[in-house]
């Protein structure tokens, strides 16, 4: 516990897992930075960047991390904070136990320090066609209307910012397995709900019925517990399980109701 009287002498203790190169050796480094009211993890990291000296006085390299929006909508600044994957922008120092332990989300390749490469998530979004296809050689006109209540519900799924927290929390997403992970699966449900997106819904279902797809979910339900946006990921997965059960029979018997 910090026992200092004024904000000028109070400090924040941090322990950061450092890694200089991709796949390189790791080491823990301790830091102590001046406390300011309302600090988030990023402001503590910025304080280290402006004065890259460890707690025991050794000069080191500034800590590398990703950030962008600073308001928990871009997903770039995710890292493991005191054992939990979350956004470093919206995680406030006042709400954390010290020393604050920072680690990269190791389910992804670590580029350097706290910076990870989330490419596999973006590739997964391409794979499952996580968009509404509206391109044509002529004006396709307006699409079908979406019921307002359905739109409100789908909006919750659209809050996904590809931050990778669910991937880090999932025990089945790792280098040992090819599982696509919860976030891209929920996007399949989102775009298969959209009236225009649903026009290719069988293509998305077929993609997640491939290797490393939907069936690799082991129902630990860590994703829904960890999602910073409260997206009902496990409900999406169970719903897709039903949709793929039906799709499986349609494929097998050569149904002509592929997008009904």
């Amino acid at each position, binding site marked *: 516990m910090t026992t200092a009287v004024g904000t000028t002498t109070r400090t924040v203790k941090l322990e950061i897992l450092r890694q200089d190169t991709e796949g390189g050796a790791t080491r823990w480094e301790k830091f102590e930075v001046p406390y300011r009211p309302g600090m988030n993890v990023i402001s503590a990291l910025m304080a280290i960047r402006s004065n890259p000296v460890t707690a025991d006085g050794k000069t080191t390299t500034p800590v590398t991390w990703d950030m962008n929006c600073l308001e928990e909508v871009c997903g770039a600044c995710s890292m493991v904070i005191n054992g939990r994957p979350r956004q470093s922008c919206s995680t406030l120092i006042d709400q954390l136990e010290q020393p604050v332990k920072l680690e990269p989300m190791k389910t992804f390749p670590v580029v350097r320090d706290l910076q990870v490469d989330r490419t596999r998530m973006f590739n997964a979004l391409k794979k499952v066609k996580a968009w509404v296809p509206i391109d044509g050689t002529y004006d396709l006109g307006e699409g079908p209307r979406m019921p307002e209540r359905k739109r409100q519900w789908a909006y919750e799924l659209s809050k996904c910012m590809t931050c990778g927290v669910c991937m880090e929390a999932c*025990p089945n997403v790792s280098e*040992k397995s090819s599982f696509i992970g919860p976030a891209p699966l929920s996007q399949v449900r989102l775009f298969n709900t959209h009236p225009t997106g649903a026009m290719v819904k069988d293509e998305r279902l077929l993609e997640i019925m491939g*290797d490393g797809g939907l*069936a690799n979910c082991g129902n630990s339900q*860590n994703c829904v*517990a960890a999602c910073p946006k409260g997206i009902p990921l496990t409900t999406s997965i169970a719903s897709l399980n039903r949709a793929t059960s039906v799709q499986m029979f349609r494929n097998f018997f050569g149904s002509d109701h592929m997008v009904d």
Partner: protein
Amino acid sequence: MSNNREFYWRRLHSLLGVIPVGLFLVFHLSLNFTATGGEDAYNNSTGVMDLVPHSLLLIVEWIVIYIPLLFHGLYGVYIAFTATHNVNRFGTFRNWMFALQRFTGVFLVIFIAWHIFQTRIQKALGADVDFNMMEQIVSNPLMLAFYIVGILSATFHLANGLWSFLVSWGITQSPSSQKVATYVTMIFFVLVSIIGVAAILAFV
């Protein structure tokens, strides 16, 4: 496309765990439960098996038990070893169930292999599988403990497996339906465990 079959293997794994392997377990433990009525009751009810022609019994055993069990067990070990457990970081109920499902599954492969060796293979080699045989096996306290842990692992693995079966096939989708399924399957676990443990204790 031939190497793109994981979805179907996983669904088959889920299905076989319930039908026939799960059904067989309930049948097996229920039959064992007749031992609580004494030696004669047990020998009479298991003796019914001997009325089935041997060749037919072998075919049924392979199709209904050994082949589905082997597939479920071996593919299950593969699934178990692709997981990276993190219950120390995410200590939620479901994550514990996820880990326990895999631990009991791997343990059951060992237990069932031993159990089949100790009973079915001995029968094929000429021994009589009856009340006396089981009485001798569980007269060793370590073996009794091994059997009790094996039975509880099997009943848990089936009960929790039923829960994930309901999710994996899209039957329970909403959080509340999954919660109801948790209660139902856990009651099922307790009931089948009572039957199974009472049965093994009847041989003591």
